[in-house]
């Protein structure tokens, strides 16, 4: 896997090169924003998260370690964590406020075209998962559910939810690695 671009951008960010941040933004803001809006279903939250992620990268570029994966994988990881935190916080807020009905979901961004060859391979691998694993991963990753919530949603024991998430990710890893793709 060629990580030259990832390393070079990292070094330029550490040196304080603003153009490197622009380049990283142009390359990966669709990934960050698309994921944030899919998980939060709230455009304002998605914009805030996108800003926080890139501001975070600029203030602390050393948090990214090119030896452990690509910028895409790293930004995907921190974006997801922030988006999930937002979902759980907003659920807590609603609980505190004694529960107005949840805001209407935005148009399903899964409709958005799956662009790029990596995305197509990942999507194909997801489509080929056993239905139980695919559904569990969808709820956890794209809806920000904990494995306990996944178990509740699917009406399965918590242990089963845990193992479906694990087996599903393993299966995706084996397949994508076999295709020479490292997300």
């Amino acid at each position, binding site marked *: 896997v060629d990580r030259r671009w990832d390393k070079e951008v990292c070094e330029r960010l550490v040196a304080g090169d603003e153009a490197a941040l622009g380049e990283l933004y142009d390359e990966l803001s669709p990934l960050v924003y*698309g994921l944030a809006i899919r998980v939060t279903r709230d455009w304002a939250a998605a914009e805030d998260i996108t800003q926080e992620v*890139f501001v975070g990268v600029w203030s602390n570029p050393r948090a990214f370690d090119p030896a*452990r994966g690509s910028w895409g994988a*790293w930004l995907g990881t921190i974006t997801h964590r922030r988006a999930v935190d937002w979902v759980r916080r907003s659920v807590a807020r609603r609980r*505190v406020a004694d529960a107005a009905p949840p805001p209407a979901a935005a148009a399903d961004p899964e409709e958005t075209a799956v662009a790029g060859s990596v995305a197509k391979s990942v999507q194909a691998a997801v489509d080929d998962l056993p239905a139980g694993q695919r559904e569990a991963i969808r709820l956890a990753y794209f809806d920000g559910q904990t494995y306990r919530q996944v178990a509740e949603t699917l009406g399965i024991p918590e242990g089963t939810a845990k193992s479906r998430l694990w087996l599903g990710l393993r299966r995706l890893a084996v397949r994508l690695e076999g295709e020479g793709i490292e997300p």
Partner: protein
Amino acid sequence: MSDGHAAVTELLGAWALDGCSTEETATVEAHLAGCPSCAAEADRLGRVAAGLAATVAAPPPARLRDAVLAAAVASRPAVGDEVGVGYAAWVERLDALLGELTPAQWRERVIHDWSVQDLVAHLTATDELLAAQLAPGGAELPDDLDELDGALPARASAAAIDQQRGWAPERTRAAWRAQAERLLGDARSSAPGALDRPVRLADPRLPRQPLRVALVQRLFETWIHAGDVGGLLGGPPAPPSEGQVALIVAFGARLLPAALRLAGADRPAGSARLVLVGPGGGAWTISPAGQDAPARPPEATVTMDAVEFCFLLGNRRDPDSVPHTVEGDPDLAARLLRAAATLGCD
């Protein structure tokens, strides 16, 4: 393999998808730090999980680009200045913990006779003592020690706690967070000399300090209270990073002579050596306020763990029983440790 290992292994899939509770996440991450095989598997699953993001990529509105780049450039702290970054990290951590709490947990007693809500009101009140000085036209305090009121932080806290007991917890959280963000804005200021401006600490009787030192006190107090709230949620204690420990212990060593004087514990005068071991530690000579480097060898040498010293500063350790060793005058050592425990804000 221990049960811990097996329990963590079966959580790795959920963990990689951010689908564990806060406590489980902390357990998994603590295990990963010491288990290379699980860490490798976790990295692999984490990368695959992140790869799922590619399937929902969607371009943000074009106007966002300039806004993000401008915010980034405005936010970057000066190179080597860890205070802003560290304080921001603990504000983020405490806010995340507060977001986990149920309404009942907000009312639970967490430290002293304070509920979580009282604790956050207290933190907001002590943060405000600094924020008020930074606001345009901020109040100037007199220079004469006798006119300065050491009970100010306690009074400000009590008033805020009293007032906010009638508030919804989210309001208390939002008020604290908004003010912390304003302080962070000052912490990240790139104006030359901005962090060198002299300000009062929470206890106004302590000598004025550069803003960067006052911000270490905010970082440190926010860390202590994040630990209080984290303990309530059952997570493991999160120590500050090595760089933050270094900032906090340097803060303590710098203020100790004044703390000894305020406690009336600097008579008879004697200097002590403070040796803090572990990451972020170091060695300091603590001389009575107003004296230059001592002509004689120190009367006492106190050796202890640097992180334990941070907890002591936060009044989360008992000065008499916190693990330490003393060579020389045990009475001077005891006075030193008791004075250290007064440098927190509660």
